[in-house]
């Protein structure tokens, strides 16, 4: 029991100091009917590191890692290269094993990097203010809708058909149980004009994604004007944050709240989590924001320092009147994000985005040249939709049998929708190589 420092003689001395005969006495408030005599049955006893490691190697061996296969899946989680420095830094014990910076005098490290993170998020999104991160982009999007409901005192969210289906699903679930309505607009391709036409005096917010789930890149300035004319807020969601190195930021299109999934920067795929949500808004809405905020101040000696601030919005102060029940952020994932982005800097972040776009463009041209295959996007960043001559799900399975992870069949996230049955979503990042693209193209040719 390598994690437990107390020895039997320690335990005896401690019991003596307490005046108890046994540890059982300390549990005397537990009703007799619920006291377990022995340990819980049917579970193994403790093991050494070697055995534990072997157990996990056995789990790992039953998976196909993207590291070992041509890989082109995105749909809200993107495989980028993360510099070694990032993973080293987040494993420093001072960051890894610290907690919420409740005592600012001895957590300035955490507080300063979160302040830097907040600043980076405002710069990327083109917004005034950002919080210290959310669980992830998907839950952050729902929090944005709830915030818009608070700001506008309305209860109808208008959702673009181009929003990630699982993000939409969370909004719908939350609306059902927290009492607001959500309406989905037309499918992505013709959705923008439809949204502009449908915003009215009952709409609390319109939720759009850029690039959209299907990869399209759009200007939402006119939609923002329509929202503001009707007294609604525009929420722009970005699931691929690297796109902000190349694209006009949502803040310049009139967005009121911007939510991003920040996983692409600093955080690996991790089978879907933990990720990091970026959440930014305009100054005037700051007191309606969910989550933690770090602010600058001075200490008793007049030196600059940082603290958690405006916490009267939060559950531990306001309880049932809080802006959200959230009591944590994604601190360590935010650190990974901010370290990676600092390494990239202005020049590196822009180049990374260019590289993604260039590689995606190359593959789009080559896939589009396959017989019977059509790329549906006029515009995209690093992900695009391909219409195949047959259903996409079995095609992806057939590719997987060849150890090629060749994109996402859209039907997996929109089951039962016949119109998407043949659609394949393909993502290409800077990690793509000719050694991966060639087998994908050959495999597609063969399977089709």
């Amino acid at each position: 029991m390598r994690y437990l420092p107390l020895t039997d003689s320690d335990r005896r001395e401690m019991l003596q100091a307490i005046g108890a005969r046994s540890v059982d006495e300390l549990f005397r408030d537990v009703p007799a009917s619920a006291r377990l005599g022995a340990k819980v049955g049917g579970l193994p006893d403790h093991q050494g590191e070697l055995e534990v490691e072997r157990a996990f190697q056995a789990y790992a061996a039953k998976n196909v890692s993207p590291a070992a296969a041509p890989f082109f899946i995105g749909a809200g989680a993107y495989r980028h290269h993360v510099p070694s420095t990032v993973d080293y830094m987040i494993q420093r014990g001072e960051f890894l094993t610290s907690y919420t910076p409740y005592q600012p005098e001895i957590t300035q490290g955490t507080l300063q990097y979160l302040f830097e993170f907040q600043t980076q998020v405002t710069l990327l999104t083109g917004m005034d203010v950002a919080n210290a991160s959310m669980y992830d982009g998907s839950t952050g999007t729902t929090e944005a809708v709830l915030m818009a409901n608070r700001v506008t005192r309305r209860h109808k969210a208008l959702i673009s058909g181009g929003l990630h289906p699982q993000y939409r699903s969370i909004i719908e679930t939350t609306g059902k149980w927290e009492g607001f309505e959500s309406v989905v607009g037309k499918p992505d391709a013709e959705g923008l004009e439809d949204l502009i036409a449908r915003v009215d005096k009952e709409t609390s917010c319109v939720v759009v994604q850029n690039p959209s789930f299907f990869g399209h890149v759009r200007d939402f300035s006119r939609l923002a004007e329509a929202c503001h004319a009707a007294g609604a807020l525009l929420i722009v969601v970005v699931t691929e944050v690297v796109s902000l190195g190349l694209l006009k930021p949502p803040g310049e299109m009139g967005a009121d709240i911007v939510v991003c999934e920040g996983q692409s920067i600093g955080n690996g795929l991790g089978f879907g989590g933990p990720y990091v949500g970026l959440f930014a808004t305009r100054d005037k809405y700051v007191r309606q924001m969910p989550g933690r905020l770090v602010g600058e101040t001075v200490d008793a000696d007049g030196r600059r320092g940082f603290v958690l601030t405006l916490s009267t919005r939060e559950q531990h102060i306001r309880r049932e009147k809080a802006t959200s029940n959230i009591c944590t952020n994604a601190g360590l994932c935010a650190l990974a994000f901010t370290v990676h982005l600092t390494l990239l800097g202005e020049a590196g972040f822009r180049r990374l985005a260019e590289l993604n776009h260039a590689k995606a463009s190359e593959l789009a041209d080559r896939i589009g040249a396959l017989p019977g295959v059509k790329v549906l996007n006029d515009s995209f960043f690093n992900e695009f939709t391909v219409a195949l001559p047959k259903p996409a799900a079995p095609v992806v399975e057939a590719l997987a049998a060849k150890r090629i992870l060749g994109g996402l069949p859209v039907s997996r996230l929109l089951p039962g929708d016949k119109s998407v049955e043949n659609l394949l979503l393909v993502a290409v990042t800077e990690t793509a190589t000719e050694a991966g693209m060639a087998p994908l193209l050959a495999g597609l040719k063969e399977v089709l």
Partner: protein
Amino acid sequence: MSASQDRSQGRAGGIVSGGAAAPATFTGNRGLQIEEPLIFEMGQPGRCGVDLPEPPKVKDRLNGLRRTGEIGLPGLSEPQVVQHYTRLSQKNYAIDMGVYPLGSCTMKHNPRINEKVARLPGIGDLHPLQPVSTVQGALELIDALAHWLKTLTGMPAVAMSPAAGAHGEMCGMMAIAAALDAKGERGKRRVVLAPESAHGTNPATAAALGFTVKPIPANERGRVDLAALKAALGPDVAAIMLTNPNTCGLFESEIVDIAKAVHDAGAYFYCDGANFNAIVGRVRPGDLGIDCMHINLHKTFSTPHGGGGPGAGPVVLSAALAPYAPYPWIVKQGDKWTIAEDGAAVGGRPLGRLKAFHGQMGMFTRALAYILSHGADGLKQAAEDAVLSANYVMASLKDIMTPAFEGPCMHECLFDDGFLKDTGVSTLDFAKAMIDEGYHPMTMYFPLVVHGAMLIEPTESQAKEDVDQFIGALRSLAERARSGTAADDFKAAPRFSPRRRLDETLAARKPVLRWRPGSNFKQAAE
């Protein structure tokens, strides 16, 4: 490039005023206490910490939406980045440095094997939407953890997707709302009962779901007042949200009666599992009559706290609530694992989806590694040691500090500020003085049921000699405070930390939430 030319920002700039006066240094540093600028005050345009190839020229497909102008990110080399964050790290207290007695937070040891296995390529480098045939091991791993959680709690089902404890609360309370809905009772059951000692998340969660929160008073023993609870129960009550062991560090001794009363009234029993670490292997919450409970993996199962996240909050559910679990569900069909990702696939009456993908896999991996390392025997021993240690701290200090309640505590011990009466020293001052002794303070002013609360949780991870030193430090502080002559000293604490007391009022009154080019907050503050 927006890096400021004013390199003195935030620096002391000469002789420092106040009690920590020391000889001025050229750099503004004090030995190894380095004054670290913001990244935006460092670097040079054109510097970069990452080498990337020149992108090939392609026809732009950005729909005319190319970004114009600077983003405003600074340019730093790799060594500068390493030094910057290393220096920042050295301003943090952490579990790896010593006793971190934050009550209710469970700052136990974070083993590094957990980090290692979470980073195995076949686990850490997997896409959540890969074909299910290519992630069989990942699904098996999630199910293995689910099995442990169900077995340790004595509950038949578990929802794995919630991202944190508070998110788990939302999940459990939605399941309760869904179950009431199915019975046609959601409209009339609009009240949720929560003890005064509850975490703030409980009332916040209930209120978000449209319930009215009614507080239940505590009795003089720090437990729920059963008579008051029974009086509050009625046909309008949906659920009680109860933390057990509670936030006073006490086991709710009448919990079986509470559960019965709640169920007799047609309501559900939500248990906040924040303190499950005290009873793992000794008590199964399922045997107490609860309907659902979230488990904070970062507390009970030692996934790293990470400066405030990420966490994970799986929710165990009774048979009555299991059909309402949100998807995805991990299901075994024959010898193959599948993921039921939507309502049609799940069957039952799921409440919907709460998070993209399948949950906090990285946390599942770490928690399972911790569980396998400890085993059933070690988990039980850990709970016992945590309870023993907390009782030892309380017994060793009860003659000089004032325990809030009589009798044994569980994993944390609660003091009020009675022992500081008329000394001029507040709970806050006392906590700040602990920093100078080299400790992170305890949780202060929570729970709200006692005056000037100090909630101390030593955890099972501390050796007895370290706990003894910690007790010695608290004893010495209590003696100094009670001497009646040290109030000014306490008010000036901490003196030896990277920063002294920070002006939180100023931060809230004039919020500066980001760096801006040319900003100099210090001057503005003056």
